[in-house]
């Protein structure tokens, strides 16, 4: 029960400044965000709004320039198996079969071959790739590759799954199917998911909370809880009402920029 009191992730006044040649880029400025276990959060915004930077800080790939990023109250010092990342371009190990890609994390943790096999079998079934267990990544479609990427993170016992525009490179039909499968996995496993996207519709379809971010400098514009019942219907009036509100927030910085 202590878990429900402490947020799984806390972002406190996090800023990130990059030095690019002689230019200083404020990728993220004064971000505050608290994520509870089991939530599905979508970070949404135009390019340059800092959504990927925030995600990378949560993953531990980047450190904040100021402020702090905490997981279960402890600073996030570097990448860790408890926080799995799903990349837009999959980042599978091309020399490993589907089976070995999914087993990479468990094997790196030093588990025995039999244990690794049991874990791999479970998650390969979960993402429906049993028939392709021995295929190499280059033999798979984009959607299948992304399923492997999801499975390898889950096989590693990640509590928090960070997804950086994971379905951005997929065709519309595949994307819809993977969105459904992801929701299904999320509901069954009670994972915490932070999902970066630039598509408003995708965010409303998936999230409990949609965090709208705006660029120049990257910051959190608003944090919107969604009370829509699941499964959600993209064509329903409620869905479209939310879409209108979020789209307006997403474009709110345009006026300011012109001024």
């Amino acid at each position, binding site marked *: 029960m202590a878990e429900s009191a402490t947020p799984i992730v806390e972002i406190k006044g996090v800023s990130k400044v990059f030095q690019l040649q002689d230019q200083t880029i404020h990728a993220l400025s004064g971000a505050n965000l608290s994520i509870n276990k089991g939530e599905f959060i979508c970070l949404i915004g135009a390019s340059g709004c800092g959504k990927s930077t925030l995600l990378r800080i949560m993953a531990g790939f980047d450190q904040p320039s100021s402020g702090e990023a905490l997981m279960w109250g402890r600073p996030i010092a570097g990448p860790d198996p408890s926080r799995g990342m799903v990349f837009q371009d999959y980042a599978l*190990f091309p020399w490993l079969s589907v089976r070995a890609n999914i087993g*990479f994390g468990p094997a790196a943790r030093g588990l025995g071959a039999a244990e690794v096999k049991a874990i791999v079998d479970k998650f390969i079934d979960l993402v429906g790739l049993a028939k392709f267990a021995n295929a190499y990544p280059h033999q798979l479609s984009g959607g299948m590759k992304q399923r492997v990427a999801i499975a390898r993170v889950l096989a590693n016992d990640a509590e928090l799954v960070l997804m950086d525009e994971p379905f951005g490179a997929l065709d519309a039909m595949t994307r819809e199917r993977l969105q459904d499968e992801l929701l299904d996995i999320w509901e069954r496993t009670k994972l915490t998911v932070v999902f970066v996207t630039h598509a408003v519709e995708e965010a409303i379809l998936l999230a409990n909370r949609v965090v709208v971010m705006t660029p120049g400098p990257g910051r959190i514009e608003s944090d919107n809880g969604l009370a829509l019942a699941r499964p959600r219907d993209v064509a329903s009036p409620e869905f479209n009402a939310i879409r209108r509100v979020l789209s307006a927030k997403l474009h709110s910085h345009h006026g300011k920029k012109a001024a």
Partner: protein
Amino acid sequence: MAIVETGSVAAAAPAAATPRAATRTTWARFKPTVLALIVPLLLLAFWQVATTQQWTRLIPTPYAVGEYMIDFAVGGIYDDAYSATLTTHLLASMSRVYGGFALAALFALPIGILIGRVPSARMLLDPFLQVMRPIPVTAWLPLSMILFGLGAKSAFALVCLGAFYPILLNTIFGVRSVDPKLFEAASMLGCRGNAQFYKVVLPAATPSIFTGLRLGLGLAWFVIVVGEMTGVPEGLGAVIMDGRTLSRTELVICGMIVIGLAGYLSDRVVVALGNYLLRWSPNHHG
């Protein structure tokens, strides 16, 4: 959960194979062989015409060379000092090619990995090696004979030098150009530090390393004649040098053909091995 992503949209393929289609597939099967033979056959024809028309008197006809090749391989036609010695010379050259190549790989792989992964090693070694690299193996011949003496050791050293740079450069390239995302993926999966070298860097670099080894072995065959200019009694390079001294052009041409074929076969074996070991790599099929 379904596996197939998208519905099949393709129209049904034409049902039965028509006779024309059959001809097409036969042609498709033999096309590579037929095309590959055109240039050598044209060259052979030109050689035949040039020698029978006596445009030159110094080059023997293809037939004479063919006859000599048989004598060189199994004897029984001329029965001179070179009859039935092909196997001896071929084995002598092969031992130098593969030995020199193996020695080159033994040095080039660790040095390449070091230069590719450790910045101070790169600063220490890279400028020196870049200056040494353009010096041709032929230029090393006199020094090699002073350092290693006349004979097999010198030949070995020169072949090794010839194979060294392609292996080195491709190894450096391979270990340097690992997709940074793969390091992030490995570390978020719990594989950090030195373990990443074995789990990420080495496997990711294998296609480049393999290309380097293939080029290195090719170059080892390429420099074998220079390597055997060092006064070794046996070897295909030695045969060619003898042929030149004795004005036995047919011997020279026989030696050239054997080197070409041996180098080609050796490369095919390496390519087949690579296709098997690198079957995971979409762009590695020689």
